[in-house]
């Protein structure tokens, strides 16, 4: 099955919420411990929100749902996000 896209497409939604580019961040999967860049995750945009899954074990990493005036970001499958921060 290749009915998915990838984490690059999460960039716009996440950039409305965060001041940094989250698609370049590295994450660690709760389920299998693999590390991936957010942009590399498998993203299924067909649900009411978007679901990102681990390319290694297919576990749900994050879900993002938008409603009028609200956003719900569920990071249940991510133990850690590592973000590059510009040096001060």
């Amino acid at each position, binding site marked *: 099955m*290749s*009915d*998915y*896209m*990838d984490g*690059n*497409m999460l*960039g*716009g939604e996440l*950039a*409305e*919420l*965060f*001041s*940094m*580019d989250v*698609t*370049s961040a590295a994450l660690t999967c709760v389920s299998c411990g693999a590390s991936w*860049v*957010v*942009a*590399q995750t498998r993203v299924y*945009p067909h649900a009411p929100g978007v679901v990102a899954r681990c390319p290694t074990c297919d576990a749900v990493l994050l879900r993002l749902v938008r409603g009028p005036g609200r956003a719900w970001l569920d990071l249940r499958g991510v133990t850690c996000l590592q973000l590059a921060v*510009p040096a001060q």
Partner: protein
Amino acid sequence: MARAAVLGRLTWRVGTVAALRDETATARTIVLDVPGWPGHLAGQHVDVRLTAPDGYSTERSYSIASAPADGQADPPVVELTVQRLPDGEVSPYLTQTLAVGYPLELRGPVGGWFVWNPDGPASTRPVLLVAGGSGVVPLMAMIRERAAAGSRAPFRLIYSVRDPGALLYGDELARCEQAGDGVGVRYVYTRTAPPGSTEPTGRINAAILASAGWPPDQSPAVFVCGPTGFVEAVADLLVRAGHGAGAIKTERFGPSGGKP
């Protein structure tokens, strides 16, 4: 500029269609004036939002085709190339209805991973670009940025396309090659090759990647963009050929050869 392109929360802004350019029978470049454009990096995309009179709204992502230098002009110019999908909801409007002077709502630039930066720390590394169909669009932005920035990084593009009529930027790519300053292009036709072609039609395979790409020991930066199945197949071939998974950056735009 680079920092402006990747830092700071984004909101929707409105651009105005300044010009339209047909690239093929089914693909059109939209030239947008975007006041206040913060600048972008080659490889980034924008989200486009269409809203119907009844309030129904839908969004799609489109790669930026133009070089960052155009986004720093006055007024800033951003070009998108949109491939029309037969069953598309958004692309038929963008390629058939949208006219010069129309407003277009967009959010961007988006994405800091699938980017090539001529000022970055690895900017002299050889670059391998692998395009499937309209996946060539963000890779063209990189080729344009290379020229605009005067970069000498050696570039090779392997461009898989159905037939000559579906080729995007064919004349410009030919000029890039003829300039002889380090951009090589290899076309791989999947259905119909141009008259006189000696290459068989078919998909990109290991032999093509080996002959038209860079060997892994040259540590090329690799960018692969296309439909999901294409990207998976090419990335697998590259890893099997010895390229490090960390050196391969990928962008997938869905199952059927276009953004849904």
